[in-house]
């Protein structure tokens, strides 16, 4: 990589580069508090204060590429759902869980408008598309169970991409996907209605995390702290100006303000779900997600999530 862009700016040259990777679905933007910190420039500012220069990079098509970049040392930090983080840690790449940025990653189920399906219970015998190996898989199984259905009662179809085309063409009856996607389908594109979301049960939600390579963080602890500081500032901004925060989310994700409010306004602008801190509740959730992955045979190596998480950066940032 040739990064020597402006050779005469000596102060910029002295800064050490920190590379952050995250999955993107839309317009090079990651949802949530991280996206807000990036968009508002806080992340860049905080890192610069500690002598770092931010190089952020979105990865189309989510998880795997971010993990590959992290494993091969092409990025230092990753901001994404806890599932890929668990996968990479379980694969023996030495990483550190620095922050649980969101303890309420939502998912939902959307069906065709005139399908006659009103609740999860009606899904008996139907085809449901879902992305295998993500927290949505866990949510879907839990939701089905809650409504008295087992895996055998429905036809589950693994679709990591293009599920919406299958819904539109009638090849599947329902899609389980992330909150953002189903809201987009239901409210923006008007091609379906939401029959269930993880808002119903906090156990069904996923978590979003910031992790970093241990060999980078050791010696560059200040970079990790700077991330947390920026996130804290972004959360404060959102709490103080909820309306502008919704606007930013709406604009960057190309959705309407109403949809943004639906997605982020569940606690009326308190933004409690941007926990940032690594507290026991969040760790429990991550740990149960890890257990799910192991039970499903998706990963083999167990590890201790409570050891993985390291709240010292949050504490340092709050000091």
């Amino acid at each position, binding site marked *: 990589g040739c990064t020597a862009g402006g050779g005469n700016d000596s102060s910029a040259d002295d800064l050490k580069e920190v590379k952050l990777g995250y999955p993107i679905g839309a317009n090079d933007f990651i949802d949530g508090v991280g996206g807000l910190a990036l968009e508002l420039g806080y992340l860049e500012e905080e890192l610069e204060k500690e002598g770092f220069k931010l190089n952020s990079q979105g990865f189309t098509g989510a998880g795997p590429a971010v993990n590959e970049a992290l*494993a091969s040392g092409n990025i230092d930090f990753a901001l994404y759902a806890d599932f890929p983080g668990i996968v*990479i840690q379980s694969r023996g*790449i030495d990483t550190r869980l620095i922050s649980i940025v969101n303890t309420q990653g939502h998912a939902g189920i959307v069906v065709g408008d005139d399908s006659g399906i009103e609740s999860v219970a009606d899904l008996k015998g139907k085809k449901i598309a879902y992305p295998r190996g993500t927290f949505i898989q866990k949510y879907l199984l839990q939701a089905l169970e809650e409504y008295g259905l087992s895996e055998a009662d429905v036809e589950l179809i693994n679709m990591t991409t293009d599920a919406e085309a299958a819904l539109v063409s009638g090849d599947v009856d329902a899609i389980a996907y992330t909150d953002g996607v189903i809201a987009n389908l239901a409210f923006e594109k008007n091609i379906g209605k939401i029959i269930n979301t993880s808002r119903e049960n906090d156990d069904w939600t996923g978590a979003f995390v910031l992790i970093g390579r241990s060999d980078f963080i050791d010696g560059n602890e200040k970079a990790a702290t700077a991330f947390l500081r920026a996130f804290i500032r972004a959360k404060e901004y959102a709490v103080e100006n909820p309306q502008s925060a919704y606007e930013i989310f709406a604009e960057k994700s190309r959705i309407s303000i109403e949809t943004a409010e639906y997605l982020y306004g569940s606690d009326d602008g308190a933004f409690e779900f941007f926990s940032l801190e690594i507290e026991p509740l969040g760790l429990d959730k991550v740990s149960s997600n890890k257990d799910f992955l192991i039970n499903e045979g998706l990963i083999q190596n167990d590890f201790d999530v409570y050891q993985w998480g390291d709240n010292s950066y949050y504490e340092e940032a709050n000091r």
Partner: protein
Amino acid sequence: MNKKVNNLNATGLILPLIILLAWHLSVQSGMFPPAILPPIGDVARAFLNMMESGLLVGDILVSLTRVLRGYLLAIFAGVTLGTLMGTSKHINDFFTLTLNSIRQIPILAWIPLIILWLGIGEESKVAVIFLAAFFPILINTISGMRSTPKGLVEVAALYKLSGWMTFKKVYFPSALPQIFVGLKLGLGISWVAVVAAELIAASSGIGFRISDARSMMEPDVMIVGMISIGVLGVSMDKALTLILERITPWKK
């Protein structure tokens, strides 16, 4: 003949061995993280596991069926249309612009439309493979037909051979070596496309296994998948070479 084949195999094995050695040494040196480039032993173990559980054979059969269906369709359509386009200027003019445009469009971009038209069953996976294999076969067939010596076409004209007979006796055998270049390329690309095809609602198949292993960071399984495809592809390619030799006895 037989001796030649053996010779080829011996020389051909040098480079793979060098690659294996380089792989082994670079993993040993700790240069690459095993989460991306695992030790050869891990791959062997993953292979044995997948063989034992029947997973690998199952995946191969599923993907092989898809590849064969898409590829055979592509041969049929590519050779037929290629013949028409290579021998008739009108047909050529009619299709060239459209096919040339379609040819450039990424396969991944087709997937939503393919799902819309063909659903999420086998048809759509076969269609993706067809779309990938069709163009190399088409273009090589056209070019092969065009390079048929005019003198020989004149001989057919002289004996008033029907269009079909002229095709069978002159154009086709003349174009055959180049059609086979297309068939080989098309076959290779069919296997390349199998991953894209199995992004559409698949839960088995070697392409699905590769994507799945990738998202679960199981490079050993992934490499087993890659090697399986390599071996399958090479075997089918070799079969094509033998068929070509068999059906073109005039080429020595």
